[in-house]
């Protein structure tokens, strides 16, 4: 009996400063709900959602994390095996943008992915529903940052008004799927056979 195709589970980790709207984005995406009340996330929690990406049904496992340092007691096991990392900042808070670098570096260190240079990140600038005068980080600045980090996809979102959330997560899922496929490739890829060295030993030679 042929082995049935395994369901693809994509592990996505959401990182960013406290209060930028990580939990809200996730709730908006998964539950289509938004609450104005702030409640700090403690530790981490995950929600799952089934989505169709390029005609494939995949399960996204979204790991929401605590932005507040005092709640960051998660072990490296939490970061490992991630297929995509979503960095979130608040467009009205310049500091949350400046810390993106260290979130990214910290994630890379903790997760130590096989190919750190091409690991998929996605940047979300949240809370664009507020008035323009409050905005502290321009779209250009964010785009420049993304370019300097190897063309990270960038979305300006609002969890409150559900702007761009669906599109952003669709991209996240797609990029995670690519990463997942690469990991599988790494995991199942047998050692290369050195043709030049010992091909004769491995296969023998026809003597006729």
């Amino acid at each position, binding site marked *: *009996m042929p*082995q*049935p195709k*395994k*369901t693809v*589970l994509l*592990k996505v980790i959401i990182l960013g400063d406290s209060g930028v709207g990580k939990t809200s984005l996730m709730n908006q995406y998964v539950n289509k709900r938004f609450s104005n009340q702030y409640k700090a996330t403690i530790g981490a929690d*995950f929600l*799952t959602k089934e989505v169709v990406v390029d005609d494939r049904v995949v399960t996204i496992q979204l790991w929401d994390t605590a932005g507040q*340092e005092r709640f*960051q*007691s998660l*072990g*490296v*096991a939490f970061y*490992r*095996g991630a297929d995509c990392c979503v960095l979130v900042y608040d467009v009205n808070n310049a500091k949350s943008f400046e810390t993106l*670098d*260290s979130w*990214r*570096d*910290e994630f*890379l*260190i*903790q997760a*130590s992915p096989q*190919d*750190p*240079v091409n690991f998929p990140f996605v940047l979300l600038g949240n809370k664009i529903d507020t008035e323009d005068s409050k905005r502290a980080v321009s779209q250009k600045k964010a785009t420049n940052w993304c370019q300097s980090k190897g063309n990270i996809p960038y979305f300006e979102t609002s969890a409150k008004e559900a702007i761009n959330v669906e599109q952003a997560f669709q991209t996240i899922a797609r990029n995670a799927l690519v990463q997942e496929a690469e990991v599988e490739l790494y*995991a199942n890829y*047998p*050692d*290369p*056979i*050195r043709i030049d060295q*010992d091909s004769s030993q*491995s296969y023998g030679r026809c003597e006729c």
Partner: protein
Amino acid sequence: MAVELKLKINNTHTNGLVEHNQRICLASASSILSYSMDWTILDSYKDTRKLLESLEILQQPQLMAILGDSTLSLHKMADLRDINLSIKNVVAISTLNSTHSSLSAEAAMQGRKRGTSKRRIRLRPIDPLETPTPIQSLLAVVTKRKVSVYTWTQDTAQHTDIPLPNTPKLVKILNPYTTFIAYSASEYSLIQFDIKSQSVYSINDVILPSTNKSSLTANLTGFLYRSKPLMTPLDSEHIILVDGTQVLVIDQDGVIAKSTTIPASADDIASARPFIYITIPPYSNETGSTHVYSSYTLELVQVLPVVCSFLHKSSSVLYVDAPDGVSTIELVNTKLLIDSSVKQGKYDEALALLDSGSGIDITQAEQAELRLKILQLYSISLVDAGLVDDAIDIFIELHTNPAKVIALFPENISGRLYTPTHEWSILFGDFAKLYKHVDERGESECEDAIHNSASMSSIKSDTDSASVKSNGTARTAKKEKSSIEALLRYLTDRRQKLKGSMSQKKHSACTSLNVKLTDLTKQQLLDLPSSPAESLNGSELAVLAAVVDTALFKAYIETRPALVGSLCRLENHCQPEEVEVSLLDRRKYSELVSLYKSKNMHGKALDLLKRLCLESESENENENGNEESDLEPCIAYTQQLGREYIDLILDKSRWMFDVNKDIAIQIFIADDERVESLPRLRVAHYLHDIDSHLSLRYLKYATEEINDQDPALHDYYADALLQATLHSRNTPSFDSTYASYVAFLSRSQQYAPKERLRGIPADALLLARAILADRLGRHDDALRLYALDLRDYDSAKKYCNHVESKDRSIYTKLLKLYLRCDERTAPASYYKTSSASASVSPSPTPSRTPISDDTSNPLNAPNALYMKEAVLLLTAFPTKFNLSEVLNLIPSITTVDELNVFLLRSYKAIVGKQRWNSVTANIRKAEDTRLAAKLVDLESRYVVVDDNRVCPECLKRLGNSVISVHSPRGQVTHLGCKDRFSVKLQRTQGYTKQDTI
């Protein structure tokens, strides 16, 4: 001998037995007997069914599942007569009481997803004092073509029906997400549930070696051996099943982990760590027996010469139904078994033996110590066997000193800590000497050891063993790589733990920077305590953090060069001395700069950047003669240093100005908080030493763009501009320089004008002087400079307009200047007199000023130009002058024609003013009248005089006599007392009647 059969109740046979809550329940025909642990009967319950087959406990809902006569009933534990649920036509049941939390579920799922079911070692015996984790109870019931799974958690109970094409004969729940079912002795399937929802599941067949044969033979063999499938869970991730004469250990994904052969088909199977028990009925000419296998190596340990069926596994014993009656199988000589396992290098078996807890006569403390020692041996053996991942789990669990762990790795990572394999035992103390490295054993033993470790580990994948045969070197490389991967996991984990503890203890700031690993010997590092990060003191934490980060760095250099940058940029405890060499060797300059930056070694960073910049410059020069070099990185780095590094910035940026002044100036001119925070005066002085133009450019930026209000800086800027102006005299750039000087003087309010004025040479830069004189309040001087010295009459008028609010006679003063002035009046002499008058106060009567005296002299008549300006002034602002005063001033030769406009408008103004005065006078009068009327109104009052009212003056009753009312309070007196009282009243109010009138 490893186990022993002990008879408990003679001649009693049963199919079902459970031990729960210090009680043993035993199904005997149609009743259930309760025993205490010493087998005295406590209670009994009679059921309606004829034969009870099996008993199971569901801990979460506190139910007992009783299966008998194909009917399953759930009874309350407290009272077995209370039946909760009853299901008919039940073929088989299985239960599970698990403490799986959602996170471990995630781990299980990950394992499943990656296709590598990782062997989990239970490192710590379950602590009875630990807070109980919520228990989840599951019950799987096989009925016709269906399996029903019931789940009870703390607050919910749910149930899922899974329809099947056939009716299975046996069901076993492995863990909350995996259930195995068996249709026949060779047809097994597994049902995998989703973590979040049990209603989502998938069913897959387990592919057994025998299924490779033709299905007919398979069925036939199944039929020939026996028709009953056998399986039993080994641990939460592995299940044992029997396929003919093969015993297979299957993981939760249905993949065969290991297998062994038994001499004949089995009758019953049970597992109780560390052994697997298999009953083999009499075959050919052998008598029936129970075989005991090690659950780790699947080696035959012992054969008990009886056939028994297995009833129930409790924490320490296995209950069986032996020919003589209900018995238990217990471990004996456990200490000996442990020792022999340790000697043979079967550490996991030794641990399981130790955990089984029976048959050992040592105290708990000794047991814990022994555990620790075995675990350490185990971990070393795992590292040696290349199973670093598993070893790392142990190291993390034991909080092993990271220095010791790192020492086990190759020299390029461990550096100074490197310890060759044959010395490993020394690292972990005396007991560890028991561990012998593979090399030290004989050749044959070596084979054994490899075999042992290979069988110990289910991890060795097929590809791995294939590569062993084909390509030895590739295998070593792969092994090394995977071991470094595992080390990365360990180091990042430690790093986070240490970081957490350090930030809690707030020691990081003071100690981390001072730690120098080179000050400590290798032994000192290895002797650091192996304890949780929370219990270490500040300096130990700092040292360990340095050890971990440095090793992490080296591991990254080997395996993930791209991550070196990330590590360097973050706060880290790498030892710069150890790390910088390797970064330099690999030409990873930007990472090195990041490292210096994170370590606050900015001097070194800037030196390196300088070197790089100059190198690239010379390269460019060689290649295409292009001298342009990229100062950008150096400038960007310098910009972010900020105020506290000003000495360093000034010291290290000089060369950049030598390369390109225009670009280098950006070090100090940038839209950045840190750049703006630099001490500006110092920067200005510094730039002045390089090039005064740079200094001016900077000062302009500081005063205009970032609006610095420091008086010292403004003074400095003014003086610098003055110097530049004076220097540029007689050069084309004079005009622009002077213009900016003047512009600055008029714009800034912060400089000290007196000193600035003193700096200007006597006869030069008149406009600047005028501005400064104005700032000093010497309006006359300023006016004179505009009007006479500069002959800028428009400016003079504007100045009058500007100063008018402060000095109302300013227009008259200007007029006087025009009228009395001639070429002979030396500016200096005038300067003296008027400055004296200005410093007192502007005199309101112009006739007393020395100017007016002079003008009365007709000899001193003004020249025509000034006269014309004077008339223009009078015509433009006729109302600003006193007519009679002007007429006194005007030289007698002036014609009325010239003054016509002035006189007319002045006259109109006077008349207008008079009219205005008369209007206001009348308005005031009217207002007076209105107020008087209001006063009368306010003063008139009603008073009530009754029998009791007395005159405040004479203190007699008022009665019907004539009265007088006094305002404003309305006191009432006799008319006769009026005058005396009024006087008194006025005295108290502080005025007399005359005043009011």
